[in-house]
């Protein structure tokens, strides 16, 4: 098993920032209060306050959670109210609401990550998806592929000069299946590039197909595809 350091750096940073903001507010509330609650209870109350009914909303392929109902606050209210006298609830109430409010802090920070992520890791640049090629290799995924291997230098040298071109998905599909017996079909992208990694911290995982002539690359994610052509072949050997 290989160990993968693979995380989304920007998400990690904004999440940390979010928690710093929450701790800041918690401290502010604490300082202001006349009757101080037990300190160890504060994080518990905040975490419980976080519980909420929220709607998941897909924005530019990022799932953002928009909180609606403060379930945690309600639960705490009933538990605390029954247990203690009402005034005890007063000392914890602000922290419970801060917990619920934390949802909005994270909501805002997720919204913020979208343009930031886009600026640091522009998805339409191949070098974001193919950053390290040390362990790169080509695999034949279809029998129409020829015995050829990856030319790493060619790939590295051309990464910045690849031309983006439109994807004609249904034309490619039709061209492949028409005028050929079903048994004799070729695949337009019979190779897959593996072992590359995306830019550090981007958290991107892209499937990379290579065209039969070795001069086309199809970057494929569940919700996005990009197609690039190169001047020279990325493959060597074979013919």
């Amino acid at each position: 098993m290989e160990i993968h350091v693979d995380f989304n750096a920007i998400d990690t940073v904004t999440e940390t920032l979010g928690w710093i903001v929450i701790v800041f507010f918690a401290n502010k509330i604490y300082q202001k209060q006349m009757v101080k609650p037990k300190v160890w209870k504060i994080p518990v109350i905040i975490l419980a306050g976080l519980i909420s009914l929220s709607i998941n909303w897909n924005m530019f392929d990022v799932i953002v959670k928009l909180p609606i109902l403060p379930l945690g606050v309600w639960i705490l209210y009933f538990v605390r109210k029954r247990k203690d006298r009402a005034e005890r609830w007063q000392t914890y109430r602000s922290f419970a609401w801060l917990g619920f409010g934390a949802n909005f802090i994270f909501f805002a920070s997720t919204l913020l990550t979208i343009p930031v992520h886009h600026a640091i890791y522009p998805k339409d640049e191949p070098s974001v998806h193919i950053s390290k090629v040390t362990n790169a290799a080509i695999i034949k995924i279809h029998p129409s592929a020829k015995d050829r291997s990856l030319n790493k230098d060619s790939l590295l040298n051309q990464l910045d000069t690849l031309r983006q071109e439109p994807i004609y998905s249904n034309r490619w599909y039709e061209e492949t299946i028409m005028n050929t017996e079903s048994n004799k079909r070729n695949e337009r992208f019979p190779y897959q590039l593996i072992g590359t990694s995306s830019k550090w911290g981007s958290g991107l995982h892209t499937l990379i197909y290579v065209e039969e002539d070795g001069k086309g690359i199809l970057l494929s994610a569940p919700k996005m595809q990009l197609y690039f052509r190169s001047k020279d072949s990325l493959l060597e050997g074979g013919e």
Partner: protein
Amino acid sequence: MTKKKLWSLGFFMILPSIILYWFYFSKPTSFPTNEQLVEEMNRNFPEATASVIQETIPVGERNVLVPFISKRGDYGLSYWVWKNHKWKVASIDTKGEPRLWKIHKNDPSSFYFVWNIHPKDQLSSIHFYMIRDRGYRITKGVEHYEPRVQMEKRVSLQEKSYGWMQLSHDWVAIMNAYRKAESAKLPEQDLFFGWIPYDQMNKETFPESSVNGTGYSNSEVDLEHVMIVNRGDIEFPR
């Protein structure tokens, strides 16, 4: 007094840990004898009518594949797992059509094709496939093209009726790439596994005696069905 307390506390902490470790994590003991295997299989699943053990094949440290012949003359497969400090039969198939045994669900390099083909079917080879269909879609003007994946691995059946084969490096690499890239979508993508049986004349055939068995499983094993595909559904560009 306090020393005594400490001792008893230590005792009551350590003893259960040792027992738990022994029960769940200890290394397997020697594998049961063939007679014991037959007996356990027939006790758990009388329909198996197991009679002859062909071989015991360790697959990893805690898993053993046991091909067997039944009283009825069927060639079957049984799957043994070391669990709770005991060798247990986790699954039995009375017939040995190929399956994919996933030892660790999330690690394709631990997947094995296993089979036990009845000699009466006279197969000379099996071709295994990993396939994903070619496709395209256009949603709101955004185009998406899915290349066809069709990878093949041939296995000769000349020597033994049974066999096992780990997924090759290339297959594992492709599966891992898909799992990572599509984890946002569906956990298991559209990759599927198939096989084509070939007879002595290298003609596609149907192995009557090796399919449609009955099975027993206590759900501790992950066995994927490998379906028979038609030659017509396979692309042979050259």
